Every structure is written in structure tokens, then in C-alpha cells.
């Protein structure tokens, strides 16, 4: 289990950070705050789960923020203007986003182009398409929305575990099972380790690439639906820059951007750490919002430097024993 130590470190940082925050503001250690933390970061957790697969496979997906934006606008217009039942709208938008991801994966594989640029074009395309649908914020008034928003499991201590938080937790668990227990998951790691080796070992590289980007866009679509529940509106400018928060969460969670290593649980912890920083700044009240960005940057640096050191330590004994053998 090579992926374990970085995840443990992320977990320790999260617990220590939470403890520090709780010492300064005792109210943070309540189910109410934790429940809100999960609700506020539900869409980020979902989209980061998909991004984890992409990054472990050695790719990157810059289009997820735009797909979220497109989904919210599409769902809002379908329900409010075109009179489509919400469930049909959800299925349609999920099919659309999955097809979009599959197309990006196909272009990456068939034309042998860097994922960075292909998904960048996808980012422009999806954002452009949502501008085309509507540039205004469209409020959603369908009864499903108020039902879902009102639904929550009561936690001891007055906290609320909302429906969107539950959806996020289920997807994180499902994602972790898919990545760690199935052949599909094993193939994702194999691709990230080495494309050529994976191909020689019988992994259908092309099919896998298409499926991985399809999964990422599909989850971005779900994140978009969740985001529309969260804001009760569709807006073409929503979730701008979310792809960076997502990548940051994945990296803080201990996944290597070179691919081949990482875990969904780590990503989930990374999302919570980002949420915790935001919560701390809200509690403090005197800190300005830019400190969130600076703190995230510092944390990113700390984690990457730590990983770098871990990789160096892990390599050293191997080199020494190889030298001894010769």
C-alpha cells in the first residue's frame, strides 16, 4: 500500500488543523459546523472524486468547472423555460456531460494530444455553450428543489446532514470502492504508472481513456446538479475556477500529478481541509478572503514538498540495495 502514507499525513493535518481551530473557536467542534462544511463543499467533493481518477491515470481535466456551469444553466432552463420534468432534465444533462467527456477522451487518445490542451478546449466549449444558453441567472422554483433543500438528517448536537451532503458522501464511497476494488480501478493505476506497460499487459488503453474522462465529466454533471440544488439557480458564470480548487484538493489529498498513485479518500480529506480553512476565516471575521488563497497556496507547497521528500526517501534504500547487489 504505497498510497497510504500521504493519505495518513493528510488525515493528520486535517485532525490537527481541526483541533487548532477548535481550541481557538470552541464552536467549530460542533455537528452543526461539520454538517455545513459537508454541505458547502458537496459539489467540490463530487467533482474531485472524478478528478482523482483522471489524475491517477496520468491525465488532467480542466473542463470540470465549465461542465458544472453548463449543467446548472441547462437544468434551470429545461425545468423553468422548456417545462421538462426535473428528473428527465437530470438524465438528459448527465447523458450530455458523459458524452462530452467521452468525446474529450477519444480526441486525447485517437489524435495523441496532451490532455491539458484538449480539456482546455473543452473548458472553453462548455463555458461558451452555457453562455449561449443564457447569460442571466435563472432561478429554479420547481417543488423538487425545495423538497431536496429542506431534507436533512438530524445529527446529535443540532447539526444537519443535508441531502446534497449525503449524495456527496455516497459518491465518495462509491468512487473509493470503484478505484480500489475493481479491475477498472486497477487499470486506472496501471495507466498512470506507464501507458506503454499497461498496453502491453493487455489494458485497452483507448477504451480506458474514454471511460476515465467520461466518468470525470459525468461526475462534474452530478456536481452541477448538486450545485443547482445548493443555489436554487442556474448561472453560466457559476463554478468558474473550480477546476483549480479541485486539482488542489486532489494534490493535498496525496495523489501524485504524475499519475500512478493516490486515493479517493485522500481527495475527500483534501476537500475537507480546504473547507476548514474557509470556515476558520469565516469564524475569525477579521481575516480577509485573500488569506484563503494564500493559506491554500502555502498548504499546497507543504504537501508537495512533503511528497517530494517521501518519494526521495522511498527511492534511496532501493538504490542502495541495487548498488550492493552489483
Amino acid at each position, binding site marked *: 500500500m504505497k498510497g497510504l502514507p500521504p493519505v495518513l499525513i493528510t488525515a493528520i493535518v486535517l485532525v490537527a488543523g481541526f483541533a487548532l481551530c477548535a481550541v481557538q473557536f470552541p464552536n467549530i467542534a460542533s455537528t452543526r459546523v461539520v454538517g455545513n462544511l459537508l454541505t458547502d463543499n458537496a459539489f467540490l467533493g463530487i467533482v474531485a472524486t472524478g478528478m482523482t481518477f483522471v489524475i491517477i491515470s496520468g491525465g488532467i481535466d480542466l473542463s470540470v468547472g465549465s461542465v458544472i456551469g453548463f449543467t446548472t444553466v441547462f437544468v434551470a432552463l429545461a425545468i423553468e423555460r422548456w417545462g421538462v420534468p426535473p428528473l428527465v432534465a437530470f438524465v438528459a444533462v448527465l447523458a450530455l456531460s458523459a458524452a462530452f467527456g467521452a468525446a474529450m477522451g477519444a480526441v486525447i487518445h485517437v489524435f495523441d*494530444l496532451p490532455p491539458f490542451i484538449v480539456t*482546455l478546449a473543452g473548458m472553453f466549449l462548455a463555458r461558451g455553450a452555457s453562455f449561449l444558453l443564457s*447569460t442571466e441567472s435563472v432561478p429554479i422554483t420547481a417543488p423538487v428543489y425545495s423538497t431536496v433543500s429542506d431534507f436533512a438528517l438530524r445529527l446529535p448536537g443540532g447539526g444537519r446532514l443535508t441531502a446534497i451532503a449525503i449524495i456527496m458522501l455516497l459518491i465518495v464511497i462509491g468512487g473509493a470502492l470503484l478505484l480500489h476494488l475493481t479491475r477498472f480501478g486497477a487499470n486506472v493505476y496501471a495507466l498512470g504508472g506507464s501507458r506503454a506497460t499497461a498496453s502491453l499487459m493487455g489494458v485497452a488503453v483507448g477504451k480506458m481513456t474514454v471511460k476515465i474522462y467520461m466518468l470525470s465529466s459525468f461526475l462534474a454533471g452530478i456536481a452541477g446538479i448538486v450545485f443547482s440544488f445548493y443555489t436554487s439557480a442556474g448561472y453560466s458564470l457559476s463554478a468558474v475556477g473550480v477546476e483549480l480548487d479541485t486539482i488542489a484538493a486532489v494534490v493535498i489529498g496525496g495523489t501524485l500529478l504524475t499519475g500512478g498513485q493516490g486515493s479517493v479518500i485522500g481527495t475527500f480529506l483534501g476537500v475537507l481541509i480546504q473547507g476548514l480553512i474557509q470556515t476558520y476565516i469565516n469564524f475569525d471575521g477579521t481575516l480577509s478572503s*485573500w488569506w484563503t488563497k*494564500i493559506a*491554500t*497556496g502555502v498548504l499546497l507547497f507543504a504537501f*508537495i*514538498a512533503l511528497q517530494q521528500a517521501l518519494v526521495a526517501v522511498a527511492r534511496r534504500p532501493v538504490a542502495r540495495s541495487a548498488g550492493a547487489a552489483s
Partner: protein
Amino acid sequence: MTALLPRRGLAQILALIVILAVDRVVSPQFFDLRLQDGRLFGSLIDVLNRGTPVALLSLGMVLVIATRGIDLSVGAVMAISGAIAASLADSHGLAVVLAAALGAGLLCGLWNGFLVSVLGMQPIVATLILMVAGRGIAQLITEGRIVTFTSPDLVWLGNGAVLGLPVPVAIALGMLILTGAVVRGSALGLLIEATGGNARASELAGVGTRAMILAVYVWCGVCAALAGVIAAADIMGADANNAGLWLELDAILAVVIGGTSLFGGRFSLILAVLGALIIQTMNTGILLSGYPPEFNLLVKAVVVLAVLLLQSPKLPGLAGIAARLRRAKA
């Protein structure tokens, strides 16, 4: 100049001509130029002027990409240098303002270069750190406000004219010539390409790959800082939230449209700048056509895909198509 313009620029030049022709169709006055108060005006000049920030960014970015790297932080560096320039402009002379702003860019580049070349981090993560934190630092400098200034010296940098050309365009041209002279007038360009082609082999062959990598990130930071000062001078203020926002993507796009592979190993300065102009010509054309700016991103996505597919190793490029046409005729 022949060293700056290799034969492989054909696709880009054709693309620019096609887009210019489309612009001419949607806006008949597109090529009109007139001289007023010692400065040229017209859509073409407008394209050059507005394309300046991305062109400057792409000058640094193309060298970074040639070493197989990438710099995501240039937009944030623009915001930092713009914020510094705007805060100092009314209390200090132009020399101090420029030195402080460009010095900040140099430091940012040094930080990125240190992470990549000394700590051995992956460029995309290493520069992500400054991309996230940099905008926060810029907001810290301006304290979250939009800082405005009236210093005529700095305003001149954004709105003045030299020999009829807007100052930003003259600066970008000067930087292109300077960068070209330094990297192509010496072996530096070759060493940078060698580093990107195969860092280990180059290291063994005696190329100071670490120094090369450090140098290109520093240069990229300085170019970004210059772009940030010009952007601030243009609007006579610094908006830490929006200055240079997403321009790193445009700069990377310009480099890729210019035919430089993201896998490093070779580069062309002049084609990267051409790429920046293609993007701007497209933007201006859409504005002039009267279509809603919403189309902008869609058209951009389609053009990017088209240029990418033309360069794809799996597709016969322009040369292949031309050869086949010739064969068909014969």
C-alpha cells in the same frame, strides 16, 4: 531573422490570413488606418495593442514550454506586478515603479524556477502554488480595493505612442527582438531545447540544465510582470481580482497554436507571438461582427481544436495534404 521564422510557420500564417479575411468580411473598415495626434488608429492597431499582454506572456511561456515545463502562475504574477506598480505610481518615479514591479516578477520566476529545478517538482504543480497564492498576495497589496493612479509617466506606458505605434506594442516588439537576440543569437536557445528534449542526456553532455530551467522561469516571470504593468497602465489602476485572470491559459494556447509542442524540445518565439495575434484577431473579429461576445469562447474552442488536429502526429499535417494533392494532380 531567418532563425526566428522556420518553414513550419505556414499553418499559422495561413490561419492568420483566413481570420483576417473573415474579419474584413464582417467589418469592411477593418484594414483602415489613420494617423491622429501622432498615433495610428484602426482595427489592426487595436488588435496589436490588445494582444500585447498575451504576446508578452507567450514570449516567456514559450521558453518554459520548450524545457518541457509550463507556467500557470503568469496571470497571478501580472496581478502582483500591476498591484505594486499602481500602489507606487503616485509617490515614486517611473524608474522605481518599474524596478519594483519587474523585480517582483523576477522573484516570482525565481521561486517557480527554484521549485522546478532545485526541488524537482512537476512544473504544473509547482506553478499552481503561485497561481493560487499569487492572486491572494496581489489582493493583500491592494487590500482588496481597486487602486487607481494618475501618474502621467505610467499612464504613458499604457496609452502613449512611439513613432505612431502605441507604446505597449513597441515594448512587445522590443521584447521580441531582445529575447530573439539573446536565445537565437547565442547557443542559449539550443541549450534550452536540449534541456526540453532530454534533460538527462543534456545534463550528461554538459548542459547546465538546472540553470537553464531556472533562467526560463525567471524570464517568464519578468515578461509576466511587464505585461501586468502595461495592463495596469492601460486602465490606470490595478484590480487584483481580475488583472490577468485566465491569461495564463491564453498564453499557453498562443504557444501551442504557434506550433510549440507541450512535450518540449523545440520552440519558435515569433510563431508564439503570431499565436497570440491569432487569438486576438479572432476576439476582435467577433466583437466587430456584432455577434454577442458569448460566441467568443465557442469560436476559440473550435479554432484551437482545428489547429491542434492539424498538428496531431496521428494526422497527415498540411505538408501531407499538399503532397497528396500534388500526387492526385499528377
